[in-house]
């Protein structure tokens, strides 16, 4: 709740004001039956038209006040809750932007999106409700009870009996209902995941002809969900009529007891009418409160999920000490990378570390290639350089400065990464390339696209560089996306270029021409390149062979062909030729 206090401080006054207005509304509702009783008892009973008209006038007057209160609080509560929701969402969004990869991995991305959307809405609705019916209902309930007692303590005996019964029913409803709903929810989750799985695997299902099996599986899950839902809903169906019935019996009792009192001359009929009205109001407030509790439970869970994110420490010390960053600014920067005994393991992974005491140097302007089998730690290594993750031990230096002492933003500005999976954003192709260099001119964009062999296909599209990419680039083929993603990196003219196996969807010809372009362009740029194909790495200045997170060989292609058995194996597997026959 700590994170909500600033909103309370900010909107506290308006919030209170809105609650005051709601109280006004409730007060009007509460006053009416009493005035009504007086109309009947004083006006009608004594056949005095003046009293009827005077009290009627009062009634209209307070109704008007109620209208003003209602309109006022509607505007205030809408304004406050929407502003609160949008600010909370923004705070959360900004926070997420500051999280580190390790934190994001821990939260799971889908869940972060849910928190941004559903959870914020949930809390916002609750706040909005608080300024409306949530406050009004208890006020009406308590006020109704007080007014009823003041009006006629004797008849209130009925309330003393009925309200605890109703309260008990409501508590039981929640006690029984909550665990049941959890179960239904679990069954629903299962149903949804079965469905999702089917949709993703539909090709395999078709390929293996397993329709009956899939249908059976789904029907089982579906049936279970059906059973649980019916069971739960039926149980719940018991309570609501129970509450209403208890209150209704109360009404009968009030009239009966009232009749006895009226007969003894101790009470007037108007009181009975008013009392019945109050009872209806109390009933309304009780049932509404059940609903509020339900909403509260959900809002509380949502608040928990939101604050869990907000409570995270900012990912990394992105702003290092100022003097350090000024140190790095003063220097002539060229992009020398040095791994010094670097080890790294992922948070929570208790197995082997992903990288084990890696040491190598990469001089400015050099092209260093990293090759190795799947899961050998190539991507992990690349991700340490822009500080997506920090080394568990050892030091990673760029131009002689420990990356942990650099300003992360500045560091990343000097690096361009082409990730393994191309991530593009909704918008124009040009804008996607421009992400690499926000102030890029159209010529620069085109130049980058030419280098990435993307210009041809982009300019062939009807709208050229203004072609809109769908979410995740659905309307582009894998190879096209990779090329746009490469162009986005090249336009940066970075000191360090990181290519993470980014040509997998490209045919060899396209790959070769991109490589050629990069080679020319990257004379000044330190290039670190991850690949699986020997052909992609063979003309690098240095090749590092990774196996199980360790460096098992480094050197030029020719050196490795002589020295490194793992490299020879890879070579053999890709060419079908013996290493010896080709070396030299």
């Amino acid at each position, binding site marked *: 709740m700590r994170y909500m206090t600033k909103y309370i401080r900010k909107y506290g006054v308006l919030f209170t004001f809105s609650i005051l207005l709601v109280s006004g509304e409730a007060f009007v509702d509460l006053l009416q039956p009493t005035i009504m009783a007086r109309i009947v008892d004083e*006006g009608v009973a004594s056949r005095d038209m003046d009293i009827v008209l005077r009290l009627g006038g009062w009634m209209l007057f307070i109704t008007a006040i109620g209208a003003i209160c209602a309109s006022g609080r509607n505007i205030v509560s809408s304004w406050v809750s929407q502003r609160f929701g949008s600010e909370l969402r923004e705070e959360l969004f900004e926070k997420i932007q500051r999280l580190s990869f390790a934190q994001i991995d821990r939260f799971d991305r*889908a869940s972060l999106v849910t928190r941004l959307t559903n959870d914020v809405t949930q809390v916002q609705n609750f706040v909005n409700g608080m300024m409306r019916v949530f406050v009004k*209902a208890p006020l009406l309930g308590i006020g109704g009870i007080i007014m009823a007692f003041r009006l006629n303590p004797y008849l209130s005996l009925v309330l003393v009996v009925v309200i605890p019964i109703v309260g008990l029913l409501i508590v039981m409803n929640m006690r029984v209902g909550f665990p049941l709903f959890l179960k239904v929810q679990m069954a629903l989750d299962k149903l949804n995941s079965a469905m999702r799985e089917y949709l993703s*695997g539909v090709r395999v299902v078709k390929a293996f002809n397993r329709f009956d099996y899939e249908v059976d599986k789904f029907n089982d899950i579906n049936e279970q969900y059906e059973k649980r839902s019916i069971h739960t*809903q039926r149980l719940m*169906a018991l309570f609501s009529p*129970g509450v209403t019935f208890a209150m209704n019996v109360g009404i009968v009792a009030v009239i009966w007891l009232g009749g006895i009192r009226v007969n003894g001359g101790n009470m007037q009929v108007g009181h009975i009418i008013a009392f019945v009205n109050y009872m209806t109001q109390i009933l309304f407030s009780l049932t509404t409160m059940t609903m509020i509790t339900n909403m509260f439970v959900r809002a509380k869970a949502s608040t928990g999920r939101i604050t869990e994110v907000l409570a995270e420490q900012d990912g990394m010390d992105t702003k290092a000490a100022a003097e350090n960053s000024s140190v790095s600014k003063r220097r002539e920067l060229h992009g020398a990378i040095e791994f010094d005994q670097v080890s790294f393991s992922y948070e929570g992974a208790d197995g082997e570390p992903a990288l084990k005491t890696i040491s190598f140097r990469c001089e400015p302007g050099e092209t260093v290639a990293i090759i190795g089998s799947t899961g050998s730690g190539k991507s992990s290594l690349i991700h340490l350089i822009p500080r997506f993750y920090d080394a568990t031990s050892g030091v990673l230096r760029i131009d002689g400065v420990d990356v942990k002492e650099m300003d992360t933003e500045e560091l990343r500005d000097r690096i361009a990464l082409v*990730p393994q999976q191309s991530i593009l954003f909704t918008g124009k192709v040009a804008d996607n390339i421009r992400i690499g260099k926000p102030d890029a001119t159209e010529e620069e964009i085109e130049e980058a696209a030419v280098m990435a062999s993307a210009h041809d296909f982009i300019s062939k599209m009807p709208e050229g560089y203004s072609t809109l990419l769908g979410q995740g680039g659905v309307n582009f083929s894998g190879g096209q996306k990779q090329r746009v993603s490469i162009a986005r990196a090249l336009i940066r003219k970075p000191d360090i270029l990181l290519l993470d196996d980014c040509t997998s969807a490209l045919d060899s010809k396209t790959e070769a021409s991109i490589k050629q372009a990069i080679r020319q362009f990257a004379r000044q740029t330190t290039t670190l390149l991850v690949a699986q194909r020997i052909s992609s790495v063979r003309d690098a200045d240095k090749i590092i062979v990774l196996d199980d997170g360790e460096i098992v060989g480094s050197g030029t292609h020719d050196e490795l062909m002589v020295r490194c058995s793992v490299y020879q*194996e*890879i070579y053999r597997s890709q060419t079908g030729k013996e290493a010896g026959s080709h070396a030299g």
Partner: protein
Amino acid sequence: MQDERNSKSKGPEAGQGAAPPDQDRIQLAPGRPGMNRGAVQKPKNFKGTLLRLWSYMGDERKRLMIVFLFILAGTGVVLLGPYLIGRAIDAMTIDNQVNFNLLHTVLLVLLGAYVIDASFNLVQGWMMAGISQRIVSRLRKTLFSKLQKLPLVYFDTRRHGELMSRLSNDIDNVSTSVSQTAAQLMSGGIMLIGSLIMMLVLSPLLTLASLITVPLVYLLARTVTRRTKQLFKAQQAELGKLNGQMEETVSGFLAVKAFNYERTAITEFQGVNEQLRKVSTRAQIWSGFMMPLLAVISNLGFAAVAIAGGIMAVKGMITVGVIASFLSYSRQFVRPLNDLANVYNVLQSGIAGAERVFEVLDEQEEENDPPGAVELVNPRGKVEFQGVRFGYRSDSPIVQNMSFTAEAGSSTALVGPTGAGKTTVINLLARFYDVSGGSISIDGIDIRNYTRDSLRRSFGIVLQDTYLFSGTVKENMKYGKPDASDEEVKTAARMAGAEGFIRRLPQQYDTPLTENGGNLSQGQRQLLAIARAMLANPSILILDEATSSIDTRTELKIQEAMLKMMEGRTSFVIAHRLSTIQNADTIIVIDRGQIVEQGSHDELMRGAGVYADMHRSLSV
């Protein structure tokens, strides 16, 4: 961390059993649909869909009618309440002394009415729970079975999220509208008409006084809905934009971080967020006026009845009891008025949901096997493409004029640049898609003349993106051959080179895999998929980039096994790697959906065609 998005349809209303008689329920409604659903979704054909839903309910219809009878009777009984209370009051006031005989009789009837009301509500809630859940369960079942019959093109051209939402959200909407709104709509309508009748019977003059609320309600509803309709639409649009932006930024976290894109992303977010806030605030304010002002109108009606009733009572035109009855009726009269508007909206979105479900049900299915279709049993496996043409749309063919023959037992490699149409060829062969022109035959018979079932059973397909299901390793391997013995499973795993890593898994073959095998590496998943295909022991083998994610060393280790698997089987291989390709009997080079070259590796290398060129540029 469970994905909570699907839970939103289980709102407070589910916890409530029957609808609570609160006046302010509508205020909760705008928020309830969560972030992704529209405020009110309009069905295209309300009546038609409703009728279809009705006819769809089958046996439940009878039960539903019974429930409606209960609602009808229950509401009628409730309507008696205020009247009886009025009579009870009269029993105390007429003759200035209490007529206990009359009072007791009236109260007993009242009590009886309440008992009936409660028990009817109970029965109705009980039955309704069963009916609505059975209906949606059946709907879900039908929809899922339908998905089995839809052609692959359907799934390829639609987003999964949207299909998911049809199966969960839309069906839930149907459930809600059946179980709750239908009941509310009925009881509300009866309540409205009933109250009016009772009031008219009691005192036409006083009815006139309380009816002053009607034009006010109408005016209010019209003013409000006219604004909110537009505003909610705009709100939905902004919401969609915002959701898209958020989702993209979070899932593209890597690119955001790598390019220091955070600030731009935040600025963009702020813009849309602010836009949304403005629209939402206005929408909220306008729709928020509805309830409190209705309450005020209701109070006004109360006051009108009190004053007019007071005057009439003073003049002796009516009894005090009539005022008492009237006060209740006038409240009951206004409440359904606003309830109905709200409920109608919920009903509409329910019908719109049903419409989207029916849309799927109406999709064209994979064509049935033609009469006289033959079972394809142990084919020799000669495959022939004759002038094959295919395109989603007729004007832009993806594959055209494609002819080649793959002899039984031979291996064919498909080579070509990205997007050349290699995968489409495979999809056509397995009849995932049907050709638009020309023909494909196996052992001399057009594949459309085989039963689809037997055709696909003859294929072993290992795809580019391997898909594994949640279940154990063994279950996944047996997917293509459910009756395989443990021994067969192990042999297949060994042949595919998957045995090593399976042994290292915590529970070996019984290790459960998470959805899509998330706890295995991409390479391991590929190995499992290959083992799965091996186990099925097909006559024709299709390997679509099957080894693209396996590193070359591992690939080398299973290459032999693959060759062994390909032995004696007609096989089709798509690969980028030359080492995989050059051993094939025939290499077919495809570009822009057409064959540009075909022949063996040596033949093609002798020439100076695309293949030779490609090979040289790639070769080390």
